[in-house]
């Protein structure tokens, strides 16, 4: 029962995280990533087998909870904690520089797209001029 509830929680966290990742606001993206990593950590915990078993220290004779996924989850938590902090700092810096929370379009991409459009228009105009001349 607990396992099912946990599995459902993992699913909800992944779904919500993915949805938030698709937003354009940086703060939502950060929260989305945080939800996703929570989901991943819960999944690691679930990978260790059924809930309710005693921890390995002090479990005498009987089956103990698998300590490996717990160690993995702890490492993953520390790493994502650091990365999320960095991303938040970056988001703050971005807000200081642009006064907006949105991820901008890539300037260079936009420039190249407009450049191509300009060239095409010029080419068309040339064709028109040629036709008129002939």
């Amino acid at each position, binding site marked *: 029962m607990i396992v099912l509830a946990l599995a459902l929680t993992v699913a909800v966290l992944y779904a919500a995280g993915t949805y938030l990742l698709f937003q354009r606001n940086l703060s939502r993206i950060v929260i989305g990533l945080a939800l996703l*990593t929570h989901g*991943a950590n819960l*999944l690691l915990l*679930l990978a260790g087998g059924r809930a309710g078993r005693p921890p390995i220290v002090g479990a005498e004779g009987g089956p103990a909870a698998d300590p490996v996924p717990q160690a*993995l989850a702890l490492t*993953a938590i520390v*790493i994502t904690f650091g990365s999320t902090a960095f*991303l938040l700092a*970056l988001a703050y810096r971005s807000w200081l*520089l642009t006064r907006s929370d949105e991820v901008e379009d890539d300037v260079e991409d936009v420039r190249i797209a407009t450049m191509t459009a300009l060239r095409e228009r010029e080419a068309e105009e040339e064709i028109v001029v040629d036709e008129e001349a002939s």
Partner: protein
Amino acid sequence: MTPLLPVIVPFGAAAISLALGRRHALRRSLGVLALVANLVASVLLLQEVRDGSVVTVVVGDWPAPIGISVVVDLFSAIMLSVASLMLLAVFVYAIGSSRTDDTTLFFHPVYLLLASGVSASFVTGDLFNLFVAFEMTLVCSYVLITLGGSKPQVRHGTTYVVISLLASTLFVTAVGLVYAATGTVNMADLAVKLQAIDPALREALSVLFLVVFGIKAAIFPLFFWLPDSYPTAAAPVTAIFAGLLTKVGVYAIVRSQTLLFSQDTHSTLLLATAALTMTVGVLGAIAQDDVKRILSFHIVSQIGYMIFGLGLFTVAGLAATVFYVVHHILIKTTLFMVGGLIEERTGTAALRRLGGMLHTSPFLAALFLIPALSLAGVPPLSGFVAKLTLIQSGLEVGAYMTVSVALFVSILTLFSMTKIWAGVFWGAPEAPPPMPEGLESSRPRFPPLMVGSTAALVAASLLFVVAAAPLYQLGQRAAEFLFEPAQYVEAVLGP
């Protein structure tokens, strides 16, 4: 020779470098010393495993599947050696550059940590440890890519951090699922235990890992972040990223597909991805008009060639991939270093503002021409040898479609290299834009350290052609070993 040296030496040096604070001369010599030691250790390791043996260490003296294994086989040793050579060259280049302020407090420690992380990803024999090594590299790369803190750097750095974090989360997910299915994360142990699980589940895991590593390696359709984020960083940073980071992803793809999922091969999937990666990458490059952006799109295109060799799933194909990776790391790093030199000299990398450098700096033109022609695969340079082996092995299997795409993409590569050549080196010399305040008088226009390290790598790429036959044999032995997962397993777990 312990295989942990290439991890420990830069790691320790990073800590000392941080403690040294603002004693710049001392920090610089410490960094160079550590990276030279790193190179020596890697080459000695390569010497040790050259006959096809494997060096293993279990950390903390726990027996293999329980303790974390460190495994160096021929493929790892080759990657380690090339990577440490690049790390050293780019470090020297960075000391010479005026645009990467190597006097900031963090450049040296972070760069050395990055070196340690890259080495760690090559030597680890444990899936979760690979994740940790990736994270070490990535966190350092976040700092390096946004080191200037300027507006475009923050904008593009954010894309990079977000996509990398997403890939990391997927990696943790994949590790969790693998652990749930098998109860181990040791790669050798996994190679055995994955064979026993449901084939459908195994296929799904295999593709999930392909996606995770594919984001790092920037294969189609997971490459969009790369040309976006690389060009804004400082020249030495872009050079080392271009040379090493995506190749760590390629290494992980090769390792996982040959060791963990050796029984079901996704040949068609990989070949199709390879062809699309090559094509889309090169078409993207043609549209750009900034030296660094053109080169960044070429990274994507070139990754396609490496995946192509793996997708053939023959010894010859994989040997060609190993050979190609080495060639590519060398050439791509050099090209970005030349790009940095152009920027250092003129203050811009935009083709429309450049021209006539053939007259003003002919030596730089030569430094660009050799790796550029090599990238396109013009004989007799290293790119030609690499592509020749790749295409021969493709023809052997009868992958005519991908072979013709590869050949066509080579022509387009040559085309976009001539575009840089025509834009930067031909034409009338542009009036050089004023140098930034304060740099005008204090710095030579071509810092000797930058030119020296670039020239050294160009010379190395020429040497690569001379030594192509023994190097290819080395690659072949590495490939043969990669196709014998049983040997790897035996080396780690014991008979």
